[in-house]
């Protein structure tokens, strides 16, 4: 059902945690909906130097969170904002049918975190 890459990403997720003195934080979801994804970033010269996530959710929520933090880390914030669903799917070797929409949640949290950073630094 899940690709090897999903299982691998899920079992050994990257960048788990919360950055205490974060430059931007994005959180999406609620216990009513289910999934909750929290992403915090540390930015220097518009580059995402550190990124961490905490996720309450299913296998897809956790593995996309991990993948998104991997993809965003080291990127310029504008580049990071351009990350698309396809990039996440590619990083994970695809997702089972009917679940590919979940992957958007982690990206949404990343975008909220970057917007939060941009708002603060306007």
């Amino acid at each position, binding site marked *: 059902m899940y690709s090897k890459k999903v299982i691998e990403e899920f079992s050994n997720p990257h960048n788990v945690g919360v950055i205490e003195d974060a430059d931007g934080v994005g959180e999406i979801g609620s216990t009513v909906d289910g999934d909750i994804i*929290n992403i915090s970033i540390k930015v220097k010269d518009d580059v995402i130097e550190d990124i961490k996530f905490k996720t*309450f959710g*299913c296998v897809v929520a956790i593995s996309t969170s991990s993948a998104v933090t991997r993809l965003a880390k080291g990127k310029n914030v504008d580049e990071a904002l351009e990350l698309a669903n396809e990039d996440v799917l590619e990083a994970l070797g695809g997702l089972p049918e009917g679940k590919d929409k979940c992957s958007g949640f982690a990206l949404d949290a990343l975008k909220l975190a970057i917007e939060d950073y941009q708002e603060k630094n306007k």
Partner: protein
Amino acid sequence: MDHSATTPVDPLVVDAMLPYFSEMFGNSSSLHSFGMEAAEALARAREQVAEAIGASPEEIIFTSGGTESDNLAIRGVIPHDAGKKHIITSVIEHPAVLNTCAFLESMGHDITYVPVDADGIIDLQELKGSIRDDTVLISVMHANNEVGTIQPIEEIAKIAKENDIYFHTDAVQTVGKVPVNVDDLGVDMLSISSHKIHGPKGAGALYVRKGTVIEPIVFGGNHERGLRSGTENIPGIVGLGKAMSLASELLGTDAKHMQEMRDSLISRVFDALPDVRLNGHPTQRLPNNVNLSFKYVEGESMLMMLDMKGIAVSTGSACSSKSMNASHVLTSLKLEDDYIHGSLRISLGKENTMEDVDYVVESLKEIVLKLREMSPLSNS
């Protein structure tokens, strides 16, 4: 640890079935001796099933499984050409019952879905109150497949009897785990599934009390006294018969063994982890059912991590495209949001051991702590 989903076939059952694939492969409707071997095997299996539940052989109709048995029971008592009719069931039935009722609703029948309390026990006052003059059937499951709650079937049977209403129970989860006797329970119809009791998939039975008239839902060569046409699945039925015999023979010891494991598992998980709740009734529950909710973590993630450790369980949480859905059963128990998405059902089998329980507890502890560390909801 997912024995409520399905069970491995007992080697004794496989042995009983094997000859009917080859040497004794006859069709029980044939007049010749090959056919008679099949007819005899069928008669023997019918006796085994009947005996295990305190019924007569003529009261047993073989089907393809629990789902078909439920369909036959419910649609069987509804005369298709009659006027509007009313059926009472519960909100926590298996989809085989709920979707059959939904189908009948679409055909113009009225269905009342009686609620359950926080432990999953049906509200008998509401049930009584919902009875109408045109109520033909009450269908309430013996034990729930997700949370294991056992219903007060005898009391429902009394209510049904007093009001002259047919009473069907889905006993798919109870056979082989608690005593199932059709007279003690007082039911008119009772569904059985073979693959839940170490019998083969593709076989089931419906008990229909003498005097209860039902119509078939599959038409053809008038097998099973016209109530279920189609060449009988002889090896499957032989397997079901053998599995029923074994189940009732070993019921006492097996149930005790499973209950000990169940109680140990529950208390040790509670000792090992905070923020856990037991779903379903604390005592009125299947001896092999453990249904726990863990705060701050989600069911499918736990399931996947347990799977990687070789432990098969199931969850009442399904993550669909847009949002997370809790099962209709957990929703009916009105679990708080904090707990509803983090449920796991661990259903024990007779072949499990206390060592298995140790391993599950250890694994669960590790996994839940790992996932809680990842969770934005917990403080850890």
